[in-house]
């Protein structure tokens, strides 16, 4: 499983549950993913935040493996979410 698989699954989930109309508004970017620590950063339009969280939640498997993608924290800027991520990694 790699970054591309995760992004493809996320797009597939958005398409499956919300269709073209919403998918066109999302502006999705997978900025960072760490499979070892289980962290990742997804960037999207603030207006479609709930849609992206729902789509992530509804993913149950990627490449035949059971997966849970659970939102940890949302933030308005990438800078602040990176700070939060670092503080969380520091806490262990």
């Amino acid at each position, binding site marked *: 499983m790699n970054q591309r698989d995760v992004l493809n699954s996320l797009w597939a989930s958005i398409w499956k*549950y919300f269709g073209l109309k919403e998918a066109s508004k999302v502006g999705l970017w997978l900025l960072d993913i760490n499979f070892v620590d289980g962290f990742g950063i997804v960037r999207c339009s603030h207006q479609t935040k709930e849609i992206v*969280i*729902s789509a992530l939640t509804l993913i*149950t498997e990627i490449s035949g493996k059971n997966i849970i993608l*659970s*939102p*940890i924290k949302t933030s308005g800027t990438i800078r602040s979410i990176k700070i939060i991520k670092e503080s969380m990694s520091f806490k262990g």
Partner: protein
Amino acid sequence: MSYFESRLRLNLSNFDDIQQKLNFCKDLGIKNLILEFENVVKNITPELKEKISKFSTIKLFYRTTIRPKNLDDLKKMLKQANNFSGITSVESPDRKVQIQAAKDSRVDIVSFSDEYIIKTITPGVISLTKQNNSFIEFSLGPIMVKNKAIQSRFLRSLYRALQLAMQLNANYIISGNFDDIFKLRHPRALVSISNTLLGMPLLNAKKAFSENVITLINRAQMRRDNNFIEPGVKLISRGDA
């Protein structure tokens, strides 16, 4: 805001499974959990509560669900469940049972969790639960099925029931009620699903996972208080504030 997973079904005969599920909930960041033991109607002993609380630091609450087949069955089961100190819920596809349960002050929740039960919801039950300050429960568990046809059919039923509940200003909670650990999700993620797929305003969805659940827990605790008569009415001894 603290969110609740209002229904996690556990089997008391398998403590390893209980431990695994609680650890999983902790990893997901769930902080408040209402546990339901399958086939347990009598009271949960303090020893058992202590044993389970050792597994995890999550704040735990308890509930029992009775599934009566008819009215006589409901009366018998409610008598049995009378000693239970947690939340009592009733789940039945029979409308007569639902109405009687909604009238009964010993019942905290009338549950509409399964697809075939959701379809039986009526404005009458909603109105009675409002009068009695009890709650209606919906579950998102069946959303995680792989079969698209079943999934969309369930979403449609749930959408209709939730819209009816919102229209009538009902007291309702939403629970996860997932069987499999890989289907467990954080309540905040379920808030998003309620908002996007079920057309609930975000504030209402958040309330259904937090404030309403707190009110429900308080209701169940107050019911145990002998001095409590009804919301706003309590017997006090002379000199009490």
